[in-house]
């Protein structure tokens, strides 16, 4: 019987570049910026890295489809580099590859890197792309905000919420992330906003206005992983270990079957259930010290609170408005600003979330430190509600 990877893999170094419109940088520069920080954090020679995983989604055309760009940008010692892609869970997928290699004993030390250079695509939002030769023949020519706006219509109908109430809760979600990002020097959008600003913003895709949508940013983040035993031998005392890494992709039910009502994400529920089991988390509401979830749009974050089992069905609106997920709430969410304000360089986002959880667990977050958490969660939702891949990862202090 498989036992999962709980506490089998330690993170000994992490790095994250400043996110934003990095007109001055290419993807290689962003990766180097994150990697230099991770190496210094790990106090490690670069040549100790035995294998690497590179996550990149959109920008394969500018930095090639393979893992070569990472190998060359960092001048790695010709170790294997595997390029992975799994929509917005790409960064987490890179971490999963590196962590599994360590857990399997195939290598002692591995690197996971996620990067995206969106501001070279020429689009103010996410770039247009074909959805597949068959899919283009019938699926709507949707955009990400429009695809996720579907959640709002269905969620409001399912739980009997007035759209004005839901909109106010969504505005609170975005307001909170702007407040948090103001404390984060690496965040893309560090301005504060008023709730009314969010409510009155121009409509992008009903009912999502401008401030319901996350930033589209350049960025890179990475992690260096090894076994806890090697980490100890390297002199690490406080140590963050991976408690769970779980992934759940759609199998077509949301697209074609009548059972899904459009108001929630099936995959997040499955991935969360598996992750809590792998990490032996019995009561996530009590045990989680902070969470970083896939707030591509405000409505996504809101429904995720229920999908992750943190709010009761239909209660996320009230919980959000009560400040349950604010930085001083019961379960601080997006204390780094989230996708909304830290930014969303697609391939990097999973590792950016892990970076914040890692930083907070080690008590290094400075003015945005939220107490002394022992367990943190990251979540990605790649794709659209109609077909997506969800990842739920748990990180904690070793021995706790």
């Amino acid at each position, binding site marked *: 019987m498989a036992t999962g990877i709980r506490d089998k893999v330690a993170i000994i170094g992490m790095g994250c570049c400043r996110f934003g419109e990095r007109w001055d940088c290419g993807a290689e520069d962003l990766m180097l910026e994150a990697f230099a920080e991770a190496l210094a954090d790990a106090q490690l020679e670069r040549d100790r890295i035995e294998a690497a995983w590179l996550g990149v989604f959109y920008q394969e055309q500018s930095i090639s489809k393979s893992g070569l760009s990472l190998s060359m940008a960092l001048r790695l010692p010709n170790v294997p580099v595997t390029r992975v892609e799994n929509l917005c869970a790409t960064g987490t997928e890179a971490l999963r590859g590196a962590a599994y290699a360590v857990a399997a004993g195939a290598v002692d030390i591995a690197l996971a890197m996620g990067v995206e250079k969106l501001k070279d695509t020429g689009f103010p939002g996410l770039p247009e792309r074909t959805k597949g030769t068959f899919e283009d023949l019938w699926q*709507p020519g949707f955009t990400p905000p429009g695809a996720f706006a579907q959640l709002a*219509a269905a969620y409001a109908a399912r739980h009997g919420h007035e759209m004005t109430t839901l909109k106010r809760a969504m505005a609170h979600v975005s307001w909170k992330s702007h407040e948090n990002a103001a404390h984060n020097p690496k965040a893309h959008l560090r301005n504060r906003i008023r709730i009314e600003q969010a409510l009155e913003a121009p409509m992008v895709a009903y009912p999502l206005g401008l401030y319901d949508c996350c930033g589209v940013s350049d960025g890179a983040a990475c992690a260096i992983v090894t076994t806890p035993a090697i980490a100890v031998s390297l002199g690490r005392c406080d140590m963050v270990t991976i408690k769970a890494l779980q992934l759940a992709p759609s199998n077509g039910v949301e697209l074609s079957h009548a059972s*899904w009502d459009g108001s929630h994400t099936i995959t997040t529920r499955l991935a969360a259930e598996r992750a809590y089991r792998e990490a032996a988390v019995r009561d996530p509401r009590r045990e989680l010290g902070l969470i970083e979830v896939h707030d591509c749009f405000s409505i996504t974050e809101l429904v995720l609170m229920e999908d992750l089992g943190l709010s009761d069905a239909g209660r996320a609106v009230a919980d959000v408005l009560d400040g349950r997920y604010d930085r001083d709430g019961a379960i601080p969410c997006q204390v780094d600003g989230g996708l909304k304000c830290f930014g969303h360089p697609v391939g990097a986002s999973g590792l950016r979330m892990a970076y914040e959880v890692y930083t907070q667990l080690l008590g290094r977050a400075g003015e945005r430190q939220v107490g002394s958490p022992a367990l943190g969660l990251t979540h990605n939702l790649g794709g659209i509600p109609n077909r997506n891949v969800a990842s739920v990862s748990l990180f904690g202090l070793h021995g706790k």
Partner: protein
Amino acid sequence: MSVEAARACLQGVDRSRVGWVALASTTLPFADRSNAGVVSAALGLREQCAMQDFAASRRGATGALIAALDRSDVTDDALVIGADRRLTRPGSSQEAAYGHAAAALLVGRGAGTIAERVAHATVAGDFVDQYRASGEDYDYALEERWVRDEGQLRFLPQAIRLALERAGAAADRIAHVVAPTPARSSQAIARAAGLPERSVAADRFDACGDTGTPHPLLLLADCLERALPGELVLVTGFGQGADALLLRATDAVRSHRKDGVAAAFDGGISEPEYLRFLSHCGVVQMDWGKRAERDARTAHTVAWRRHRDIVGFVGGRCRRCDTVQYPRTRACVNPECRAFDTQDEQPLADTGGSVKTWTEDWLAYTRDPPLVYGNVAFDGGGNVFTEFTDTRPGDLAVGTRVRFVFRVKDIDAARGFHRYFWKATVTH
């Protein structure tokens, strides 16, 4: 429009009876690709069904109808469609006068036949009342009074008299005259042919404009919704000559629907913005932004492989668990089943549904913003992620009843191709 007219025409009809499809139009979208074939595929007609485009004359619809009636040695039915999407220059008199429409008739020998042929006649002449060279968008029209006096008043009465003569019918016995000309001209034509002026059917230009090729069929459909058994109906077509076709309404006309044409006039939504109208007609080239730059190339290998799914809107129904699903795949989507190779074809075009989710997207590229799309739950199971059409902001809510219509899905301007699919529209 042709598909929608044909669907209205074929309500309650076994489509396997249709053995021939004729599509008459001067504005066919494809010069080399059977346009009747697109209609046939969308209607899910059988592969043995023959098809024929009648192009290059506004008289094509009456010509196609006569050709359908002349199929004397066959036992299956013929579907005759007339359609025109008439582009006009801004400020032209055509812009004020023209309309876009399609009308369809089913010709056969069944017991439900509502009108039967008595006689017909054609008088041809290369009379150029208006023309449009190949590749051009707009008609060039000659002086209206010359067209009336030397064209319509010359050819139409000749054809009418010839048809009446062949039928041995007295002109004053005609109950309804359908003519594609303005009411005043039609009155003059009736007088010239000795027909009672009261028999001239209204031109309906007030309701739909001058729709060109389909107009005789549209007026005939309108007329047959009011005709009494035994009444004689004279249908005429004009363009490089004239057709006249004499029909007699049968007893079955009593049970024929009375609201088809009126329903078509009342359907759809109005577009009060002139600039948007010009944009829809391609007269004004709007800046659609970067999102319109996406390559809309069609992978024709896929389009053909899946043409039943796409053009016919056919999904699957699992033999094992009875789950309806779109698109049809080799593995059943029901999480409790997931069996391989158990799906039979399940036509979905005529299945209603209700809105499960929706949005109005102002960021997405569409030539009619916002792009409205969402999930529709089919009655009887299944789901489709689909675009909505003929809706305005605020029209939709979760639970709104919808039906599906055949529309242009994407335009590949770079390669001069456009592809069709089905969209949901609010049921009224």
